[in-house]
């Protein structure tokens, strides 16, 4: 222990400036994350903050690499000329000293900072702890990866060369894999797998993460013990193979999402065709490497009946065929996904697929959607035919038989908030504060802050949020849509950034803790109403009686249904109408 502390002190003394700067960057960044969404309206400030965020991120990332490399390579593990190698310094004590310093600085400090931020933002402790644990795991992952690279290289320059080579190698490998996969792709429309809704289990990913950390740690340990790059790299590679094998072979114990009782009744979720007409449109969705003759997607107007109030069905084509006189044409593939169209009386001309359910849930008779949904494009993809087959059969009639998977979502009102700054919504994984309500010409905007906390350990499907302004007196509502969040980071690199420390992906699918400033527009991206003027307008008077309604869309289970359409006609779809 005496030697361990002595070595830690020596390294800490040598790199005290660098370590202090890094800790400072973490603290500044944490404070910055908390205050940044407050200034989102200031355009110049916002740009400056974006730049600052990028700089803080880069500094933190590079700082971490630099610290690990310098601390590890102070006692080089390659070559035969290092001073410590002929001194009574046990490899175990040396490794422990490096770990103690690096874990304290690069894992503990960001974790404490993140916890402090979450506590300040009133994240429930039950949510904060898994996020902290997740952050620790990702920090450890990156720490051990950088330690592994540093332990098999002599100095920063060689580390850069090795890291660059590994990166280029991975990119090349990825490109080759993509090219091979695309080569193997069929030339038909891209299909999705038919999987009944299951609650994703984090176990496989967590196991892979733990095994990858273990592999990197083993590499480091073997390098410290033997100082043999060959042995340590082989050990690390074997560990990575085990981690990958574990992911590939890990049983997917995802629990099937339970189907609501009412949906199991025979009379529930019945599909019927409005007309026996199938409208076909050429699809360009094929493999660019293997262009085929083209594919026609046939859309049928299917209606779903027997769905309880507040439930939204989404249909996915599983299999289909059309029997003509003596010949049967089967669909080219399965699983082309779309949402079912529920035909309902009110505003049918401009209804989107969700509209009737939304109106039910909101308890209004009129709903102004964000996007008009042209009647001509309504329908459910029911069959996919090769273009040549379609040309052959154009105008002919047969008997259509299709199987569909119907996923059910429940829409519920999560909260009704007054339209004023300071209104707050709190759910287990999310807190939301209205910062400002802005009335505009026939529109309104609400600026709000989201505090999202989701960890990778959480199983189950998370509800989605949607926002509405509702005027009960007029029985009217208008749907809003988000115009992008500020303060978080893009989804693509979210996972990596968690590992770098503290930052979290802003998306619900991402993990960690994030604070995002968002602007919800009502109605958003309104492109004109298909059937003339909008049914109502947002005026200051309308707004004065309105409230903000937050609706949860909660995923439920899947059911399978067949539909048969006699005299199904193969027809060409009319050209889409221009918007407005």
């Amino acid at each position, binding site marked *: 222990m*005496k*030697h361990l502390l*002595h070595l830690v002190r*020596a390294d800490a003394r*040598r790199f005290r400036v660098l370590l202090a700067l890094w800790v400072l960057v973490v603290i500044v960044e944490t404070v910055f994350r908390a205050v940044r969404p407050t200034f989102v309206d200031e355009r110049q400030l916002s740009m400056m903050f974006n730049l600052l965020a990028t700089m803080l991120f880069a500094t933190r990332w590079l700082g971490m690499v630099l610290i690990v490399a310098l601390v590890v390579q*102070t006692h*080089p593990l390659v070559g*035969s*000329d*290092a*001073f410590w*190698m*002929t*001194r*009574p*310094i*046990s490899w175990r*004590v040396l490794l422990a000293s490096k770990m103690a310093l690096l874990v304290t600085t690069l894992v503990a400090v960001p974790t404490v900072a993140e916890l402090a931020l979450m506590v300040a933002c009133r994240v429930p402790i039950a949510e904060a702890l898994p996020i902290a644990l997740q952050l620790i795991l990702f920090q450890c992952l990156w720490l051990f990866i950088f330690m592994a690279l540093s332990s098999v290289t002599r100095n920063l320059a060689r580390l850069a060369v090795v890291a660059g080579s590994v990166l280029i190698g991975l990119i090349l490998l990825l490109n080759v894999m993509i090219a091979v996969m695309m080569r193997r792709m069929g030339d038909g429309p891209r299909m999705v797998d038919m999987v009944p809704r299951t609650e994703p289990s984090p176990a496989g990913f967590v196991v892979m993460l733990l095994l990858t950390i273990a592999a990197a740690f083993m590499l480091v340990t073997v390098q410290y013990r033997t100082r*043999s790059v060959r042995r340590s790299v082989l050990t690390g590679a074997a560990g990575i193979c085990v981690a990958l094998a574990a992911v590939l072979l890990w049983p997917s114990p995802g629990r099937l999402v339970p189907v609501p009782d009412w949906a199991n009744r025979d009379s529930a979720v019945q599909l019927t065709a409005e007309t026996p007409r199938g409208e076909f449109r050429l699809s360009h969705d094929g493999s660019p490497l293997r262009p085929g003759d083209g594919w026609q997607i046939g859309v049928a107007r299917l209606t779903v009946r027997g769905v309880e109030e507040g439930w939204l069905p989404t249909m996915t084509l599983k299999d289909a065929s059309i029997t003509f006189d003596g010949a049967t044409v089967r669909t080219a593939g399965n699983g082309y996904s779309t949402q079912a169209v529920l035909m309902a009386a009110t505003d049918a001309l401009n209804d989107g697929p969700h509209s009737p359910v939304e109106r039910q849930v909101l308890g209004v008779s009129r709903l102004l959607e964000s996007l008009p949904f042209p009647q001509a494009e309504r329908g459910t993809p029911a069959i996919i035919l090769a273009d040549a087959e379609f040309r052959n059969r154009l105008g002919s009639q047969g008997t259509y038989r299709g199987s569909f998977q119907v996923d059910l979502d429940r829409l519920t009102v999560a909260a009704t908030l007054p339209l004023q700054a300071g209104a707050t919504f709190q759910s287990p994984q999310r807190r939301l504060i209205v910062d400002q309500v802005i009335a505009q010409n026939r529109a309104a905007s609400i600026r709000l802050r989201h505090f999202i906390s989701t960890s990778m350990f959480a199983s189950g499907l998370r509800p989605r949020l949607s926002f509405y302004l509702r005027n009960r007196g007029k029985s009217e509502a208008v749907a809003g849509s988000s115009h992008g969040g500020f303060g978080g980071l893009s989804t693509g690199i979210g996972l990596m950034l968690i590992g770098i420390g503290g930052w979290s992906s802003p998306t619900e699918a991402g993990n960690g803790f994030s604070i995002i400033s968002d602007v919800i527009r009502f109605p958003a991206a309104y492109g004109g109403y298909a059937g003339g003027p909008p049914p109502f307008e947002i005026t200051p008077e309308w707004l004065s009686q309105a409230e903000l309604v937050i609706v949860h869309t909660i995923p439920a289970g899947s059911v399978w249904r067949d539909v048969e359409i006699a005299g199904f006609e193969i027809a060409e779809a009319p050209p889409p109408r221009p918007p407005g």
Partner: protein
Amino acid sequence: MTYAIETRGLTRRFGRTEAVKDLTLQVPAGSVFALLGPNGAGKTTTLKLLMNLLRPTRGTADVLGSDTRHLDAAHFQRVGYVSENQRLPDWMTPGELFDYCRPFYPGWDDELRRRLETDLALAAHTPLRTLSRGTRMKAALLASLAYRPDLVVLDEPFTGLDPVVRDELIRALVDVSSDRPSTVLVSSHDIDEVERLADWVGFMRDGHLQFAERVPALLGRFRLVEVVPAGDVVLDMPRVPHWLLHGTAGRTLRFIDTRHDHADAAARIATAFPGCDISASPLPLREIFITLARGSSSVAEES
């Protein structure tokens, strides 16, 4: 006799090159053993193998009774290693270096440290990287002597140092050894300094150990023989394996007898050169080293 170092068939290969070949060496405990040889002879590799800085391709080596492949922290508390190629923690001042080393050695002697600091004039308060090579070597030596190790291994410690520094280093070594006898293994090109220090000498060439013996015995074995014929004749050098032609000067033939310690050595020479005037004079270690470095390996192999 007990040995501080023993190797058996020690071999180290780098790719296709065998840097050390089948080395069998014994360094008696308490001796000062000089490992000599030209550049590329395999001396540094040998020392690195002994310090477990390199793994042997074949063979084994024991240092202070332990297999070098299993040398651990406890063993290194009894060993001091200084090499001209060693990467010192050069961000430290000499004082910081000694403070850094001290906790690892139960036998660290602060009084000896202070004495050596004074003797070696090591009062520098600037980082090692800014110091001269000689001062850095002094610091490295002090950091390897202040705990009175049982074995000191020095790899080319005097290379490139001025005579004053060399003298200071040797005095420090002698000073510590006089307090408490320890084994010193030193590889060096600096034969004059080694001659002052060593009581055993080993000679390596092309990875092979040509010989290893006590210095007095070595000095007694080599003689420069001068043969002056009685008349106006030119002498031919007879083919005797342990006679190495040194040159001719006029009528005088000079050669080195590498086995002059044999009882019949003088008689053999007299028989080979009848009627000639023969004289044999001792050679300094430097001459012996140069002779061996240039000369035939058969001489050494025979010895």
